[in-house]
């Protein structure tokens, strides 16, 4: 490539050279590739209610709605690639899919490896505590104690929040939330940290054993699409798509359906 570039510089004028770079950039942008292929490949991972399989084995959830609408607006088919959360960024970088639409929190350290779109949603961390083990706990400080163990999903912002806000507590990491929730139900950890609304749903499901020690979420995190670095064309498209659907009120409406109601519960069990 470099050799070709040098030859080009010598052979033609500077203006045509920069024009060819521009063409290359356009040709190599993810959006162009998607349009050519006719399929948008989306990397995601199961997070209730962001993305999950329903009774029919089809994917449903907030992220699924967002990605489906995005592909529809681009005029291409959507294809979901369920991927383990711990390996989702390497999978994006090695080209297993075009974009991560999976409730990924925009975090500075992640941003060093991937580029994020503008936020299309906000989430926050919430604590789910065990009624007997964590009886009387009502502040973050109560959990920041060496005798307290806390469970979270590996590689998530929940795990990062636990390290930041409760550095003295013992942190136990699991592959997904259901294992973390099973751990608290078994009474082996005092609390589970996860993105809202999961803790609230679980507290409603097991009122005799679990409760929410804090009234509100203790963090607020922007959620964005993650794409490979240095792809201005794709970022520009995604950013403006988000602005458009946000202005329409469509994002708010979908968010309310998945996070504000429990109408969808009948679809999964």
């Amino acid at each position, binding site marked *: 490539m470099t050799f070709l570039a040098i030859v080009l510089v010598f052979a033609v004028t500077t203006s045509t050279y920069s024009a060819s770079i521009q063409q290359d950039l356009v040709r190599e942008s993810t959006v162009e590739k998607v349009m050519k292929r006719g399929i948008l490949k989306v990397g995601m991972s199961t997070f209730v209610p962001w993305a999950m399989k329903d009774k029919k084995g089809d994917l449903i959830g907030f992220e699924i709605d967002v990605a489906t609408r995005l592909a529809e607006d681009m005029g291409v088919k959507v294809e979901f690639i369920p991927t383990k959360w711990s390996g989702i960024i390497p999978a994006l970088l090695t080209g297993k899919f075009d974009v991560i639409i999976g409730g990924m929190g925009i975090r500075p350290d992640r941003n060093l490896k991937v580029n994020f779109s503008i936020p299309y949603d906000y989430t926050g961390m919430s604590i789910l505590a065990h009624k007997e083990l964590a009886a009387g706990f009502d502040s973050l400080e109560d959990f920041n104690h060496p005798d307290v163990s806390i469970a979270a999903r590996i590689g998530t912002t929940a795990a990062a929040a636990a390290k930041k806000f409760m550095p003295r507590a013992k942190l136990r990491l699991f*592959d997904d939330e259901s*294992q973390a929730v099973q751990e608290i*139900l078994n009474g082996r950890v005092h609390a589970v940290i996860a993105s809202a609304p999961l803790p609230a749903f679980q507290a409603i499901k097991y009122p005799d054993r679990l409760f929410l020690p804090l009234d509100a979420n203790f963090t607020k995190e922007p959620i964005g699409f993650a794409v490979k670095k240095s792809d201005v064309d794709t970022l520009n498209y995604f950013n403006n798509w988000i602005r458009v659907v946000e202005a329409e009120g469509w994002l708010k409406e979908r968010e309310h359906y998945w996070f504000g109601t429990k109408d969808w519960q009948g679809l999964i069990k």
Partner: protein
Amino acid sequence: MRRKRGITTLDVAVIVLILTGLAYLVYRTTVVIHYHWNWSVIPQYMFRYDDERGRWVINLLMQGFITTIKLSLWTTLLAVILGTVMGFFRISTSLFKRLTARSYVELIRNVPPLVLIFIFYFFLSDQIMTALGVEDFILSLSERTQKILAFFMASPGQLSAFLSAVITLVLYEGAYMTEIIRAGIQSIEKGQWEASSASGLSWWQQMRFVILPQATRRILPPIAGQLISTIKDSAIVSVVSVQELTFQGLELMSATYLTFEVWITITVLYFILTFSCSLGIRRLELSLHIEGTSFKASW
């Protein structure tokens, strides 16, 4: 030797002990950790009635079950081919071939399969699949060919992941196949080689008419046994998101939170698969044994 019949005191004691253990587990889960058993939702994840098409179709768990079978069959088939080539290399007179085969076997057998999978998935598979143009090739196929491919392997979207999983498993299982085939050939008595050589047969003729027919009978049962190992080992490719049984189980668990029910179901499904294979292998061994005796008797 006569077999003892009837139940002894020891048998009763063992049965009582096992039942107490089971009862304690059930007690722990239901009373101590208050597990809400909910078995009623599991069957619909295996088979469900499709209203649109008006017939029963397979769901998540069964799709995973079938993917596991396809994965294992392809792996065993290709691993036998790779193992045969490498097995011949292992006993070759050429130092280079022996070194190649030995390095391959030792390298694979001394690396954890999980590490191998990660290296392959994140590093090699992307380079190989792009270089071969697998993706463009699949998309260029007609709908019918895609359907046939989906039946024997995986749907177009998952084919690339399926293929890299098969390649990794083939490399891994191939090392064991190599040793099975090498051992099978080397187990044939030296006299057979000497006698056939004295009859004026070339090396290839010796292999073809004397050694291999006998070696095959010894090789087949361990190869079939390796199929069972492959079925079990195939669970590790769930970490690279190949949608086989374990992966579907993990997905279902994340969606429904029915940890115990899902894992018990998965265990039973794997057991049905491997146990029926091992019954089949016993049959195979018996029939080979009988065939072997009649073969000798005819001499």
